[in-house]
């Protein structure tokens, strides 16, 4: 109890110090004091809820994510105060969603009962987006309800993860051993692998149609990594290679903007004021940060890079708190991903294991793709950095995923002790 209060206070200190610096610098209005107070209160209430309801899961996961959220909030205030106001609201909603899922969801195992329903839900959400979606910056990936825009593809992440976890849970053995012999390799038959591939193809196809190429890449890697993890068969990684080559080539020749992206990636300096502007500005900001950074509020990236609050928030962070700060952020993500795997290993049932590791893979892949994009290690595909980038849907969905992860962790430690005392209890 004392330990978790201490961890949260440390985390909240980052928020208040950052807010303090920005306030002195006249970059943050007074309204943020109330926003930060509400957020802090909610965090502290959470500790007591955890205590009274007897949370028994991983104690590091949440404080680490909270640190990521808080750094994101500080930088959003610095980059765009108006957007930061929204983000505070979404962060609060996210916190409540986290606790809602952690304690409200009686048993995560029930989620595994609706495997095809999740698959269908994922497809339905994407189809709806394709029909009713609004096109913003080339991608048709948000739906507007009144004044609030929502990105269903974020929700699809939950649905798809649940589908994959429950599906692989049931079909693990068949996928692992295989029933059809092709040369040296034994492959699973159509009926076993079929639904997984069909739903996967549909999801990726619709995302490609929406031109949400970054998200498509995330989902593709997620599916490949999960099936490899579950079966431990290298052939699934190998099989994905021709898919990458073919779809990459197809994308290159079908979509004009893919060609442009690749050309810019290969040499952004040729047209640093035109097509290469984004990535060039991102790199100028990052390199300008050097080791210790320019200091919070002193960078130029926040004004120079397009979309500093979403895709490029990491470039602004790397500039203003330098290599040291950027490495700290990367480390936080490594910790979250590794904790997710730890939760997975300790989970009592296979569904929980796959789901927890899947969440870890998802977060890791998302962070890697966007971070590699802003540092020009991969062609840039605009996706949000989990918990940091501006965006309500992403914040909410990742908080729900964190809730699921905590729930699995909570239920597994619980069960081990139950098994030891030899009794079976429902929940909590």
């Amino acid at each position, binding site marked *: 109890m004392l330990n978790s209060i201490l961890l949260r206070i440390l985390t909240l200190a980052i928020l208040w110090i950052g807010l303090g610096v920005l306030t002195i610098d006249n970059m943050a209005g007074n309204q943020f004091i109330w926003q930060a107070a509400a957020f802090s209160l909610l965090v502290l209430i959470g500790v007591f809820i955890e205590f009274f309801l007897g949370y028994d899961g991983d104690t590091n996961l949440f404080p680490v994510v909270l640190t990521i959220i808080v750094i994101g909030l500080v930088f959003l205030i610095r980059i765009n105060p108006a957007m930061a106001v929204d983000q505070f609201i979404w962060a609060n909603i996210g916190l409540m969603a986290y606790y809602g899922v952690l304690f409200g969801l009686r048993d995560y195992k029930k989620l595994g009962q609706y495997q095809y329903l999740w698959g269908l839900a994922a497809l339905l959400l994407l189809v709806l987006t394709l029909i009713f979606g609004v096109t913003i910056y080339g991608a048709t990936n948000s739906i507007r309800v009144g004044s609030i825009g929502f990105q269903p593809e974020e929700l699809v992440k939950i649905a798809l993860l649940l589908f994959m976890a429950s599906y692989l849970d049931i079909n693990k053995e068949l996928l692992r051993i295989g029933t059809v012999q092709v040369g040296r390799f034994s492959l699973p038959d159509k009926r076993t692998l079929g639904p997984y591939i069909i739903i996967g193809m549909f999801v990726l196809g619709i995302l490609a149609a929406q031109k949400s190429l970054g998200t498509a890449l995330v989902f593709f890697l997620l599916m490949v*990594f999960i099936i490899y993890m579950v079966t431990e068969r290298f052939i699934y990684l190998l099989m994905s290679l021709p898919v990458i080559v073919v779809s990459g080539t197809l994308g290159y020749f079908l979509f004009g903007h893919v060609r442009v992206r690749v050309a810019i990636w290969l040499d952004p300096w040729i047209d640093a004021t035109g097509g290469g502007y984004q990535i060039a500005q991102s790199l100028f900001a990052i390199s300008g940060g050097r080791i210790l950074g320019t200091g919070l509020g002193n960078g130029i990236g926040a004004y120079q890079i397009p979309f500093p609050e979403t895709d490029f928030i990491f470039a602004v962070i790397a500039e203003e708190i330098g290599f040291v700060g950027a490495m700290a952020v990367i480390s936080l993500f490594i910790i979250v991903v590794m904790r997710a795997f730890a939760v997975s290993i300790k989970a009592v049932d296979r569904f929980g294991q796959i789901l927890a590791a899947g969440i870890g893979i998802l977060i890791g892949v998302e962070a890697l793709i966007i971070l590699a994009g802003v*540092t020009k290690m991969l062609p840039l595909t605009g996706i949000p950095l989990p918990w940091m980038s501006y965006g309500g849907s992403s914040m909410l969905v990742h908080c729900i995923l964190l809730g699921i992860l905590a729930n699995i962790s909570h239920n597994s430690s619980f069960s081990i002790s139950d098994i030891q005392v030899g009794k079976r209890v429902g929940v909590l």
Partner: protein
Amino acid sequence: MTGGIRKIALIMVFSFVFLSLGLVYWQVVNADTMLENPANRRTILLEKRIIRGGIYDVNGVALAETRIDGTSKERVYPQGETFQPLLGYASLEYGSAGLEAALAENLLGLNDNSLVREVQDSFDLERRGNDVILTIDSRLQKTAYDGLKGKAGAVVAIDPRNGDVLALVSQPSFDANTLEKDWEAILNKAGSPLLNHAFSHFPPGSIMKVITSAALFRAGQDMTDIYNCEGSTIINGQIIQDGQAHGWVNYDLALAYSCNTYFAVHGIDAGQDIFLQAVSGFGFGREIPFELYVPPSSITKDESLPANLEINLFAESTFGQGQVMISPFHIALITAGIANKGEIMTPHLIDRVINTKQNIIYESQPELWLTALSTDEAEKIKSGMILAVNEGTASPGALPEIQVAAKTGSAEPGGNKTTHAWFIAFAPADDPQIAVAVLVEHGGSGGGAAAPIAKAVIEKALERKVGDS
């Protein structure tokens, strides 16, 4: 499945490590290269948020300051045109030039990369650049400016003992206070006001003779030997002319009367190897180590320091015609070198740099650049220059109580245009404290157009020295 999880975990960790290497590449390895990328607007943007430090003369007179009025900042140049184009400008619209550009790192406080400073930067929210104190004395600058105003040309005054640049005037000039408003007018004004004429190339004319002298000495020629100047001579079929027949002259008299034939004949005698070596010793063909860029002086159009000179061109070069090109700034340095017993000190404009906490973060030190002459050689040239003031062409530069050593030049710019008037001088001759070079473009004779300006500057400088003690 645990094995699978571990493998995936490894893949993830390696990917993140790889990503970190990317950060090392951009933030550590490549940080400087990126700053130099022309598309990187970091320095220009920093300008908006950093209060540019001030530029002051050696006595603390403000030459350029940033005045803050509420939220707006304004760069003001209290001395108007006097210090232009030396100071230059720093404009968001038109970029920067002159010292404002050359000293940007200091003025914006970017060159202080200590760890302490970096940590301070993270919390210290008010940012101010460093102040730069120049070696320029605004009183000398004003005197030189007043003398040259309305003409085109340059005046450079240097302390020969340490290389301090005391005055650096170029005409025509402009007012940087109204630069953005008057940009078009300044660009279209005759005489290139944005260009610093002290760093532009001109033929040196007879000023070159002090340089050629070194070749004569080194060839072992006897300086007391007399030569009969008949007003003209023919070398390799080319007629070398003097304005008048100087009669029988020795070296001192030849320099004092500025006898072309003497230097052509004796220069050719000394040979091109010794001549080119001497010229190189004075810094021809070298970049001058200085805060501002000065193009290297050159002997021919194609090569600043050729290995071979065609004989007619060589003959013309000995008295500073032909294709010899030099900047007034370099000539001032050579004058300072003669004054300083043959040692040319590295010139500098920055006296010291002071940070916001009034600590000196940089202070210039006297440093030898070139040893152009031996003490003995320098003495010989000096005696010729003294004679030039007392009895020769440089007499308009004489001062009543102080012995001045000087040399005139009237360089033919080519075509039928009026000659460029040159005058170099240092004083007092026995203990030189100031060396001056004056160029009045198309001003006629050195003694007539340029000497009075040099004289006024020397007078001002030495009056100040007397007053100081």
